[in-house]
């Protein structure tokens, strides 16, 4: 301890204190402030850039997700439309079939009705023709046979009976 | 230097050496156990060692 006190040099202490304080002040102004500010701003810049990159990445992911969603939606929509179209097609075909069928049925019915009426008319005409023929035959027969009255009446009766069959 | 002074200085050095050695050893153990905390352990180790060293020097110079 004594050696230390003995060794102590006031001049050196004075100069060291003076120079060091001066050095701190000068360095603060001319070196540390600009250096630390530059480092800090650079770090902030890097941090900002990293944040922006992260944000962009996130946005990209979002965009991709929304794209995917849109695509999915479009696919679904397309499917729905296709399905609808198929349904419409099936429906149209079925309707057409139904319509055709009903038309055909109607036509068949009509045809049947026409045939029936034609048939009726034909039968009626046939009856008339048969009747006329019968009358003509009868006239001739009558003319030939109706020489006596009894024979005439007999014939009429029998003929009438026969005619009823139709 | 008188003999007691020299012996005393030797004792101080032994004591400080043991203390710093123990700190160093414990720090090594701690780093081995938790390598991720090595920075903090080193700092704490240096501070503790510096304190012991300071006391050792103070005693040496007082003697």
């Amino acid at each position, binding site marked *: 301890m004594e050696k*230390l006190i*003995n*060794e*102590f*040099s*006031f*001049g*050196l*202490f*004075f*100069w*060291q*204190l003076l*120079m*060091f*304080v*001066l*050095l*701190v002040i*000068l*360095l*603060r102004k*001319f*070196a*540390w*402030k*600009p*250096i*630390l500010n*530059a*480092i800090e701003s*650079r770090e902030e*810049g890097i941090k900002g850039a990293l944040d922006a990159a992260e944000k962009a990445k996130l946005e990209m992911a979002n965009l991709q997700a929304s794209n995917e969603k849109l695509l999915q939606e479009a696919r679904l929509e397309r499917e729905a439309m296709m399905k609808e179209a198929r349904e419409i097609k099936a429906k149209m075909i079925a309707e057409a079939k139904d319509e055709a069928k009903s038309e055909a049925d109607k036509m068949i019915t009509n045809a049947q009705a026409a045939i029936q009426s034609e048939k009726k008319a034909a039968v009626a005409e046939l009856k008339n023709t048969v009747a006329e023929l019968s009358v003509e035959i009868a006239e001739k027969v009558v003319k030939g046979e109706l020489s006596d009255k009894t024979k005439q009446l007999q014939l009429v009766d029998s003929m009438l009976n026969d005619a009823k069959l139709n | 230097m008188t003999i007691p002074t020299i012996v005393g200085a030797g004792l101080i050095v032994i004591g400080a050496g043991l203390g710093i050695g123990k700190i160093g050893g414990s720090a090594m153990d701690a780093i081995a156990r938790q390598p991720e905390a090595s*920075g*903090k352990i080193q*700092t704490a180790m*240096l*501070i503790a060692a*510096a*304190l012991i*060293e*300071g*006391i050792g*020097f*103070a005693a*040496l*110079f007082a003697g």
Partner: protein
Amino acid sequence: MRKNILGRLLTLFVLLFSFQMGAVEVQYSEEKGATDVKSEIKEYISHHLLDSYDFGLYSYTNDEGNHEYVGFPLPVIIWDDGLKVFSSSRLKHDEGVAEVGGNFYRSYHGKIYKTDAAGTLKMDADNHPEGRVHLDFSITKNVFTIFVVSLLILLVFNRMARSYKKGAIPTGIGRGLEPIVQYIRDDIAIPNIGVKKYKKYMPYLLTVFFFIWIINLLGLTPMGINVTNNIAVTLALALITFLITTFTANKNYWAHIFWMPGVPPLMRIVLAPIELLGTLIKPFSLMIRLYANITAGHIVLMSIIGLMFIFKNWLGSSLSFFLAFALSLLELLVAALQAYIFTMLSALYFGSAVEEHHEDH
């Protein structure tokens, strides 16, 4: 084969080195005898650790037996019945007497004493010379080194600061220094002081780190500069740390010293003087630590180098050479480590001074 070449080179190196040392040793032993080498080395080491009034790089004894000094003189500035300034060449390396304004001065072991015309020094009871001039503001070797290092630091870091204007990354030496600056900020200042208040202390912490580091490294060069092994230098540095701690301390810090919260009142009264003493012991230990580490390192290193002259055989000399080499490497580490510890502990003390009040103790 490779190993062989390496071995040969190493041998050659040791050989050359030993030859030089041997030459010096022979000269010494012829002059004064082998036992004198030890005292010569001891003298040299103690002289090396002292400050001097001129900037001497080295000295040698010429063929006529006179000491020749290689270096340049520095101004001596003393306050003794008025300001006196003269060149240190007039002191003739402790051998001459300088007459300034009717007074006679001579230097002895790195200090200036007032003497008579013949330059006799009266020794007191403790074998210290009387008549020391205390107000001695001379630009000694150490002061000169402080100036040069300060200027160097200022130039280097100002250059580094200016290089940021050109781009985000510094150019030149700044590229290597920037990680250190960042390390001091991120691993010393912020963890110890806190992210809110560290900025105020950064200029001091950075300056003290680089100043101590560079000046310690200069101490390891063969120029024989030893600034940090002067208690005056470390006292000045520790005093600044102490003053900054004291004047930036908040209420919480003083409360912890004078009226420790969370302990019984009687304990508070007992603790107050201990804590107050602690505030002084902290910078004191800073001062002693730096001084003692550097001084001890220099003494041990120079003693081991001195062993080379004492050993007369090749084995001992080469052994001490390698020991000195290994120790130099260790000293390189110590130079940085002491700067780091000084900065670290300063930051720790600043941190305790501005710590906010916590409820948890």
